[in-house]
């Protein structure tokens, strides 16, 4: 009997629990009460007297009274509120994207410090000036035609308001598929591309392009004729970079590999391991091949000599500035912070931070084990290598993937620097080809391996529904799409850069004279020394620049 009573009590308790939870569910399912304009009339706003007293507590600032009314005589309407919500979302995204772009612009300072520090003092002015003027030359080229080629056929970007004046992509129809090649709207940002959203997109894309162009100056430093540098930079900003940018980001054929060939979501490159860094790194390789090594870099038997930079503090400070700017590079590539899954910016920022740290860790570990000392410049390059590699996958991978990608990039950059210097006999004073080219390509491939299928940017990517998923998480097609991207970078972009720079070499000459190189490029090319108070001596050569006597 007691057992029966206990059972009944338990049953009653369960029924009670069900009864408690049931009304809650019923309330959830109750029809929503529509908000009407009449409801808004009852909302009180601070009076003029209240506002005159100031608002130290921050409770009176930002109320219904701040909502812009279409017709003040009619008062606040529901349409006013809804429009304000929509504009606030776009405003948040505008500000986010612009601030991220400003951070990326500041990366130019980082590049300038890294490259100048890794060069000899006798070339400080020249190296700094290349990094300075790449901003002007690149921006001009991109404004004239680069942006139009890259983004002129991209659809309206919903995060930036969805206005769509960039709507004409030149396509070839081959084998029953459309192959988008380049955009045709937005030259000089004229016509109906004079649009607030387009301007935000232009600024953000322009500083990305500028990052690619500044990579080349490092590989060709200490022997590049300034005029050749200017022409080469213009071509990269106007043609080479925008072409690949269109294929990957502007609705071009690589981005459509998913739609046309069922290869995952097509070629994916969240923030530009391929578009920015591989394009810059492969162009750097082409220029370094054509221009040849610095005098004194190689002995007759082909063994290399170390040519140390003049200021390691500059180099590491530059690396820190770059790492700071990268928080604009990767999280900013959502082009928004509100809606469409953009709150993933937190994850993207952490991935960026992690990969940079594991990259420097990988590099320092490799150098310490191989040479018995932690190498400062390679630690810096390891940091950059990790950041370069995580740039493409940052929006699609988890933290474990990011750490692995960064660490492997840190080791890879050391191997690549050694290989290029000792086997390929390519003199790259700052390791730009290895940091940006090799690790950029690794970043592109790593996305096809580590994308974990959890991202959701508005439900689709490159016109394919669902999340981007890599080989390790079940989609080998995505890895193939990334491989095709890598083949295109190596096969087309490298070739284009090589052929153009070969023409520059033939008609203008890429390299300064023997005398100028020995003296240092500051006086012959720039007309002023970077460090006029010092007597500059190049160790081992006996050549010096003696000033002030």
């Amino acid at each position, binding site marked *: 009997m007691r057992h029966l009573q206990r059972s009944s009590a338990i049953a009653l308790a369960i029924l009670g629990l069900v009864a408690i939870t049931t009304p809650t569910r019923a309330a959830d399912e109750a029809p929503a009460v529509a908000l009407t304009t009449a409801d808004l009339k009852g909302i009180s706003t601070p009076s003029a007297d209240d506002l005159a007293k100031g608002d130290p507590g921050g409770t009176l600032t930002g109320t219904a009274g701040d909502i812009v009314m279409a017709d003040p005589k009619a008062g606040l309407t529901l349409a006013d509120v809804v429009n304000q919500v929509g504009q606030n979302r776009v405003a948040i995204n505008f500000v986010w994207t612009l601030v991220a772009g400003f951070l990326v612009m500041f990366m130019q300072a980082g590049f300038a410090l890294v490259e100048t520090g890794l060069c000899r003092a006798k070339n400080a002015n020249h190296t700094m000036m290349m990094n300075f003027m790449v901003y002007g030359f690149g921006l001009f080229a991109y404004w004239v035609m680069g942006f139009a080629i890259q983004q002129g056929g991209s659809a309206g970007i919903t995060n930036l308001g969805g206005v769509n004046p960039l709507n004409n992509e030149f396509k070839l129809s081959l084998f029953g598929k459309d192959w988008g090649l380049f955009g045709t709207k937005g030259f000089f940002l004229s016509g109906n591309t004079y649009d607030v959203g387009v301007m935000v997109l232009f600024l953000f894309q322009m500083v990305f392009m500028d990052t690619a162009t500044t990579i080349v100056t490092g590989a060709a430093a200490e022997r590049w004729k300034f005029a050749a540098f200017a022409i080469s930079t213009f071509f990269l900003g106007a043609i080479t970079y925008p072409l690949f940018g269109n294929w990957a980001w502007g609705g071009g054929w690589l981005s459509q*590999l998913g739609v046309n060939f069922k*290869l995952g979501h097509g070629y994916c490159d969240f923030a530009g391991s391929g578009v920015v860094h591989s394009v810059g790194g492969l162009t750097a390789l082409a220029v370094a091949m054509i221009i040849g090594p610095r005098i004194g870099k190689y002995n007759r038997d082909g063994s290399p000599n170390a040519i140390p930079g003049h200021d390691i503090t500059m180099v590491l400070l530059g690396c820190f500035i770059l790492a700071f700017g990268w928080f604009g590079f990767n999280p900013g590539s959502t082009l928004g912070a509100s809606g469409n899954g953009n709150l993933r910016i937190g994850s993207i920022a952490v991935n960026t931070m992690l990969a940079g740290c594991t990259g420097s860790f990988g590099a320092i570990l490799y150098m310490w084990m191989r040479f018995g000392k932690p190498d400062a410049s390679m630690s810096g390059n390891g940091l950059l290598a990790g950041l370069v590699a995580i740039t493409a996958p940052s929006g699609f991978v988890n933290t474990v993937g990011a750490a692995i990608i960064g660490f492997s990039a840190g080791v890879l950059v050391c191997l690549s620097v050694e290989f290029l210097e000792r086997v390929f006999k390519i003199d790259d004073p700052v390791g730009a080809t290895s940091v940006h080219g090799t690790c950029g390509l690794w970043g592109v491939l790593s996305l096809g391996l580590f994308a974990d299928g959890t991202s959701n940017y508005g439900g689709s990517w490159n016109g394919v529904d669902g999340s981007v998923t890599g080989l390790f998480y079940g989609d080998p097609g995505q890895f193939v799409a990334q491989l095709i991207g890598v*083949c295109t970078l190596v096969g087309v972009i490298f070739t284009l850069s090589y052929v153009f720079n070969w023409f520059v070499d033939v008609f203008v000459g890429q390299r300064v004279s023997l005398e100028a190189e020995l003296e240092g490029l500051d006086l012959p090319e720039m007309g002023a020394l970077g460090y006029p108070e010092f007597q500059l001596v190049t160790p081992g050569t006996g050549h010096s620049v003696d000033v002030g006597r």
Partner: protein
Amino acid sequence: MKALGLGLVVGGWMVAVAGLLATEATMVRMGVALVGLVASLAGITALNTAHIETAPWKMRGR
């Protein structure tokens, strides 16, 4: 030698893209793309070898 190298670089890319059109099997496409990539890298190696042959440090012993 330089022209041959450049030809290989571009040829590798063409092989990779041709693989997309030739088959719908993902693993075959992956294999063909890898072959194309290796060909392109071999082309860069050939191109660089051509540059090294005439490098000033080799000719003049700088």
